[in-house]
């Protein structure tokens, strides 16, 4: 529940509540905004993000859809072209593959193919990531696939503030924005300044300042990286943690800037290594900051295996704090 503490002017809320508030706020601000997706209405959302919104806004604007990812994502694109500002929820990134045609072949390309005539102002939200023993078809981190596609903007809010405030910026954007919410974070609660307001969706943020090594990460891995940085501080290693926030475009300046300061890089990404987002970041650094590097780069990524069900195996298959700490030690040479 939302608790407002007037003394320090912060509000404590969960990630889920933050996203819900963002949707609610957007719907109140703009009649053109509506939410559409599987079980977003009566059921209250697969992850209870939209719980209660149907009572407030009705079935037209909190629109339950059949299990037709391609159909309703495409309908969202059409509605966007027709003057609406749809928020389309796809339950998980795995299911979004059923809508890949619409997202990649239509939403991302239309503006260009039409010579600039038709932009697609749609926001497509989806859960991503492992950590809840949901096994291989509900747990993957495929953000990097979308980040590959020109025409899309891809964001990954990792903090309560970003969960609350990225949506309005995404909706104001004239082009399609894919928003990845790490499913393990929905229950995470945290403080946010009461007077927090809209945030950009195209820059990275340093979440912890450090001197010795840069940890580049996003989404659910941010918190593991910060925990690792804490542990490292106790051993005299000062790690800077950079939260990408935007996976497309990548904030190259921020990445290069931090590496130019620390001269060492560890990339933490729950997605797979091969041809993945982490590979892109490392490539950027070698292209733009080769001569700043004072140690080999390390990547802490999802192990190249479909995410298994068993808890111990699942944990072993995605980045964990110990792995990040070990990678940093390796890079720092201690």
């Amino acid at each position, binding site marked *: 529940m939302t608790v407002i503490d007037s003394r320090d002017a912060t509000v404590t809320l969960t990630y889920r509540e933050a996203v819900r508030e963002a949707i609610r706020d957007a719907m109140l601000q703009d009649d053109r905004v*509506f939410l559409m997706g599987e079980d977003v209405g009566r059921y209250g959302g697969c992850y209870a993000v939209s719980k209660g919104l149907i009572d407030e806004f009705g079935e*037209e604007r909190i629109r339950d*859809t*059949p299990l*037709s990812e*391609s*159909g*309703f*994502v*495409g*309908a*969202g*694109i*059409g*509605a*966007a*072209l*027709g*003057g*609406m500002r*749809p928020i389309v929820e796809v339950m998980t990134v795995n299911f979004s593959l059923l809508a890949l*045609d*619409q997202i990649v*072949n*239509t939403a991302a390309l*239309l*503006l*260009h*193919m*039409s*010579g*600039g*005539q*038709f*932009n697609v102002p749609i926001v497509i939200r989806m859960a991503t990531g492992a950590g809840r023993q949901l096994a291989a078809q509900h747990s993957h981190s495929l953000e990097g696939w979308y980040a590959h596609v*020109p*025409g899309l*903007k891809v964001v990954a809010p990792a903090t309560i503030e970003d969960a609350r405030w990225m949506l309005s910026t995404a909706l104001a954007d*004239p*082009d399609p924005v894919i928003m990845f919410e790490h499913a393990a974070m929905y229950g995470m609660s945290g403080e946010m300044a009461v007077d927090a307001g809209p945030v950009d969706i195209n820059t990275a943020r340093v979440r912890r300042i450090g001197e010795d090594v840069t940890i580049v990460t996003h989404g659910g891995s941010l918190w593991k990286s910060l925990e690792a940085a804490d542990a490292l501080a106790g051993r005299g290693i000062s790690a800077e943690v950079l939260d990408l926030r935007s996976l497309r475009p990548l904030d190259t300046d921020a990445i290069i800037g931090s590496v130019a300061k620390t001269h060492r890089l560890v990339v933490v990404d729950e997605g797979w290594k091969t041809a993945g987002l982490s590979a892109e970041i490392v490539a950027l650094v070698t292209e733009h900051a080769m001569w700043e590097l004072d140690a080999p780069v390390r990547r802490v990524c999802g192990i190249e295996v479909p995410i298994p069900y068993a808890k111990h195996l699942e944990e072993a298959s995605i980045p964990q704090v110990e792995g990040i700490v070990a990678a940093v030690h390796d890079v720092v040479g201690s």
Partner: protein
Amino acid sequence: MTDRDQSHALLRQMLMIRRFEEKCAELYQAEKIRGFLHLYIGEEAVAAGVISALQPDDAVVATYREHGHALALGVDAGRIMAEMYGNVEGVSMGRGGSMHLFDAGKNLYGGNAIVGGGLPLAVGFGLADRMQDRNNVTAVFFGEGAVAEGEFHEAMNLAALWHLPVLFCCENNLYAMGTALDRAQTQTRLTLRAASYEMPAWEVDGMDVEVVAEAAGNAVQSIRGGGGPHFLELRTYRFRAHSMFDPELYRDKSEVEEWKHSDPIAAYRARLEEADLLAPEEWDQMEAEVMVEVRAAVDFAEAGTLEPIEDLKRFVHTEEVVR
């Protein structure tokens, strides 16, 4: 039989599509036009007929075989040709080519080269119209091959479920590229597919422009009256190859010759002449005018310019919306 002006307009529209595309084929072989070029020759009655039943605010979503639809909507022939030349003066500034003709001014939303890809889009237009209380109709064209796609069924279901103002126009020319309908689908009565979504559906002779126009007119009227989505199966035939580089191994020449007896232009012309609605000199004049238009389109394209390479990265994100 409709009145004289109207029938002349339909005939002229079909003739324009025919001559324009013949010129396209010629220019393709001269390497002026490249990429894939899918010609509509033989199917002109469908676009001309259906689009004659639409209002200016109605939206059209078409396939990669869409020159006919673009011309029928009144998109400038010169800018279409320029697009195929890859010129910056093209309707899509040379970014789209033959398969991706767009025109905001005419509500033409492509030019979609993914089979079935345009169907969900049309549902979205219907939804937007409904949510904003606009009494528009969206006509979406697709081939019978698309009926095998999941997106067809998802879109049909959504449109019917939400009772949206969408006209589904299935251009059944019997072959999905080279695969005949009965070699690809269990149920070849396509209207039965629509019926399974409780959607009104008709089988229409797509070689007869007046029949098409009438069926489309009825459907559009019903949709605008709140009748929800409708489905038209327009039975037609393409006289030419699927694309340019196609030796047509999958069908007999005799079959093509057989269908050419139902050439929508020749048949309609003969019918009008028989009914004294068209004088031979009127036809000759029509031919001459159309040829002038086609030549003007080619001249426009020939005089066109290429977009500078420095502008390559335009239109990836919205910096300027051209409307």
